């Protein structure tokens, strides 16, 4: 699966409160959440971006609470994939579980500038800055996790695949 879009850059330690402030947690509808995505740091984010765009961020993205609303808001806004230097543990799980793919690459996170056109291949882990031609490699996303993303999240994946699909034999 190759994803392509414009890069939006964020720094280190973007926590779940910055992604979706607690005052908006009374909804779990992803379109409603998307409207408030980055409300305090980049108001109007959802209107600025085009579907398929990519977030490129620093260290420890998604730290803080375990709210699944955070990746839901980002996905709802239309972001297709997140590339960061590193992610907080629970955010990492939650993102894949709701069908938002994320990848870790320090080099990509450091050298891609805001606005660059970026292409990401989940299967090979290849990340390309289309403006400069620079190529980076993250750990590939294994097949079963790509299937979770394709299905739209873990619940849908399990619904489709029945009880036997999940990774382990």
């Amino acid at each position: 699966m190759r994803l392509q879009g414009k890069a939006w850059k964020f720094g280190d330690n973007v926590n779940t409160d910055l992604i979706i402030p607690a005052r908006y947690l009374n909804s779990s509808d992803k379109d409603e959440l998307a409207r408030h995505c980055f409300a305090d740091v980049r108001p109007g984010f959802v209107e600025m971006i085009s579907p398929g765009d990519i977030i490129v961020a620093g260290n420890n993205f998604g730290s803080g609470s375990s709210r699944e609303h955070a990746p839901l808001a980002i996905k709802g806004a239309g972001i297709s994939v997140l590339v960061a230097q590193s992610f907080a543990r629970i955010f990492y799980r939650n993102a894949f579980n709701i069908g938002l793919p994320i990848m870790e690459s320090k080099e990509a996170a450091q050298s891609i500038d805001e606005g660059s056109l970026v292409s990401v291949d989940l299967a090979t882990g290849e990340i390309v800055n289309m403006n400069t031609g620079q190529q980076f490699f993250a750990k590939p996303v294994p097949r079963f996790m790509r299937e979770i993303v394709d299905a739209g999240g873990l619940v849908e994946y399990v619904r489709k695949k029945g009880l036997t699909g999940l990774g382990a034999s």
Partner: protein
Amino acid sequence: MPMTMTEKILAQHASRTDVSPGDLIGVKVDLAMANDITAPLAIAVFNEIGKQPVFDPNRIALIPDHFVPNKDIESAAQAKLMREFANHHQIHHYYEVGQSGIEHVLLPEKGLVIPGDLVIGADSHTCTYGALGAFSTGVGSTDLGVILATGKTWLKVPPTIKIEYEGSLLPWVRGKDLILYTLGTLGVDGANYCALEFSGSVIKELPMAQRFTMTNMAIEAGAKNGIIEPDEVTLAFVAERSHRTPLVCTSDPGADYEKVIKIVVDTIEPQIALPHSPANVRPLSKVPHISLDQVFIGSCTNGYLEDLREAATILKGRKVAKGIRLIVIPGSQLIYSEAIEQGIIKTLIDAGAVIGPPCCGPCLGGHLGILAEGERALSTSNRNFVGRMGHPKSEVYLASPAIASASAVAGYIAGPGEL
């Protein structure tokens, strides 16, 4: 390829010969656990997937412990939802109030976790079972709901940080002090995403209860799991409780560690975590006489029989200071019963303690000992975040049961040596 014990357990459950840090793997879950707060959400996810049986009614533990005996109508509704789900799906390991206890105390006690197991729980302190040489970690509701249906989940293999404790312990220094000291060294994110492997000659000499205390607080450094190599102490504990054959995994010489930290324990005093972080740690001698309103001995960190016995040793023939409330909550019904048989409870009551029913109690500010504005408590639990035990302007200090008992008598934070 040499592997750490965490990697070995994960590889085994992924049906792979080896794994390395960063690998994303699908694994079989030996035991899935949820409590009265987290089960309702996981059950909602389970139902959303569709009408199906659970993956295995014998490999699921549903434990009412956070808000039981129910403190209000909402918590009663949550407990009821879990109880009905347990009945409907004939969940074998559902323990009603009266046969139950705190999830992380109860599961090892019932022999439900043995070395080599992979346990996933909808509670962050699921990392406790690593003291048995198992891999265990906490997850959110979607993850657990899916595990209830499939018995499987995905994990990212964590890098391991090894901590080696060598030397000999000063008087009254316990597993609690070692882990608090370690948190002070690592910081609250010092082991983010990592496995924390506790090792060294000092760990080998600790009884199981103190090992549980240490792995319980691995999450306080951000770790995914805490783990200790099984030895004779572990195997004896497990043999009394389970008929299953343990899978003893040990770390290979030459295994790759993210970091190895050596801690010489010779000069480590009893430790106190000051508000509002478990990593905000000072040695007892550097803590002034801080007056207290309440002392709590209990929780999944220090609600074990050994902890109550230690408290009784110090409180025997003494009285809780005037103006102090000493709340003691045994970690399980069995611990409660044994503490009665051994005369521990009588000693505690004579000293002026009130004994609560086995449950989480005030640890998370649930019930049975909530703090008012401006009040100060010393607790044997694992977290002292703002408002953790009540009012946002209350304060919580963390320490061992020995320090807690001595402080209850002194009326301020003090060690047994000061009585």
